[in-house]
């Protein structure tokens, strides 16, 4: 098998590495320096791990229900897109199948709703 097909990918790698190197080296020289508190925090990493209160501390894990719900609908969308694109070809069979699929997803959703998974407190 010829390896020449990979040359553009290698080129992209080189370009990406060069860009990263260039930005990191040049930024301290040309960029402005205005420090504040937020800049010293870890970027988008959730709860501050230190300093913790005695006993390890507690933090709410309510987001996990939201995250799980998101996954449910995320997966539903992944199925809906290709179905929508080839709706004409799939016809009535595809339509019924998709209704069944959405139905089962909503069964889970109903359970979460009735059991208070959507209440924030």
């Amino acid at each position, binding site marked *: 098998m010829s390896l020449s097909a990979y040359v553009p990918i290698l080129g992209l790698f080189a370009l990406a590495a060069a860009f990263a190197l260039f930005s990191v080296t040049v930024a301290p020289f040309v960029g402005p320096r205005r420090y504040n508190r937020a800049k010293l925090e870890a970027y988008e990493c959730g709860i501050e791990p230190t300093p913790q209160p005695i006993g390890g501390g507690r933090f709410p894990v309510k987001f996990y229900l939201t995250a799980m719900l998101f996954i449910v609908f995320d997966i539903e969308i992944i199925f809906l897109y290709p179905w929508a694109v*080839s709706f*004409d*070809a*799939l016809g009535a*069979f595809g339509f019924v199948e998709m209704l069944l699929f959405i139905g*089962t997803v909503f*069964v*889970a959703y*109903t*359970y979460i*709703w*009735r*059991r208070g998974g959507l209440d924030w407190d």
Partner: protein
Amino acid sequence: MSDLQLPHINYAALAPMLILFGAACAGILIEAFVPRERRYPVQLGLSLAGVVAAGVAVITQAGTRTITAGGAIAVDGPTVFLQGAILALGLVALLFVGERSLEAGGPFVAQAALIAGSEPDRRQVVRPGATEVYPLMLFAIGGMELFVAANDLLTMFVALEVFSLPLYLMCALARRRRLLSQEAALKYFLLGSYSSGFFLFGIALIYGFAGRVDFAGIHAAALGSDRSNALLYGGLALLSIGLLFKAAAAPFHVWTPDVYQGAPTPVTGFMAACTKVAAFGALLRVLYVAFDRVSWDYRPVLGVVAILTMLVGAVFAVTQTDLKRLLAYSSIANAGYLLVGVLAMSKDGLSSSMFYLVAYGFTVLAAFGTLTLVRDADGEANHLSRWAGLGRRSPVFAAAFTFLLLAFAGIPLTSGFTSKFAVFAAALDDGQTWLVVAGVITSMVLAFPYLRVVVMMWLSEPAESTPTVSIPGVLTSTGLAIGVAATLVLGLVPAPLLDLSTKAAEFVR
């Protein structure tokens, strides 16, 4: 746009799974809308009805040999036999799961993930009426049905996940000993998802070798492919790891004792009986249908695994002091005996393995069912020393348990003897003498821990702290009666079921 060719779907062949999954979805809606007090009878009735209806649907498929749903599902003799076995064993397991008279509110809680010992967790432990376990049970049984019918590796993987995820959750639902139960669930989940990873990577390598994932395609490619054989052997090895993990074969057995001990006892019985049927059903199909052309290459390796499994199960069972752990190691050893039957690679091997799965399933369900009855203030008393002298206090109970232990030990007139005889005979016919020798030796070793329990029960004096044997409710009594009767009947007159399994022992490719 070109017309899509829709696969032909034989709905009658898929009916068992459709019924179970439909009933499970209905069960979730019941959880959502039926008031708490009325959920239990509704859920139990729905689950039993669902399993029975699926059983009827399986029986109507007897004699069918077809591949449907675009090659994803194969309905043939072994599929029908094993699906029927899973449903029959699942029905008995449901009886134990549904028992409410032994413990206020049943042996399960509603929310598995609450921190053990925290305020909400202590509240749910005393609150009766959690019924989440029934839909989970139905999903697990449905997944197992699909697992033994899967005709390509991707369907098999999906089925593996469908029955594994509810099982992980059910392990964490025990009302007593919450922390142990959660530990079991976490261990099972972590190791189980790890082994699923192996399984998936195996599929990738096999696809790399054969360019197909369906079993007929792999079978054809094994004759000669221009790809490296390393892909084939590597893929098969990784695939086997995933399956042997579920079957609890050494060296992939380490989760078994902890999970069996921590899970609620009815769930443990369900896992020991039904998961084993499903795992071995899939293993049989993979080895017999897809990879039979390379059987000379993998038999020595799996033979070593079988011997290791038997040895580990037998030797470690001797050192156990907890009855659930003892039965867990016994279940590992039995996985070894089953592998001996599987490795016969003949029609006899297939039929005797299927017979073994049914016989062992009923015995192990009844054994775990009896464990739920011996209780003290802290719940079940599973420590061996606590059982001393139980024979004097409750002779009928102890006699039943003794009978089950003798069946495990393979004493004649029990199903344990006929099933072991069948797999060993099949292996001998095929020249696998080394496996049979190892099997007989480990059987003798394994008899010791069983007989020690028998001696404990009958020949020791009952102590002050000897727990009482609870009066079983209707459901548990029925389950125990079915389990003990099956153990006895399959020991006395095994011929009808053996004939059935022989008739069923032909895969469709």
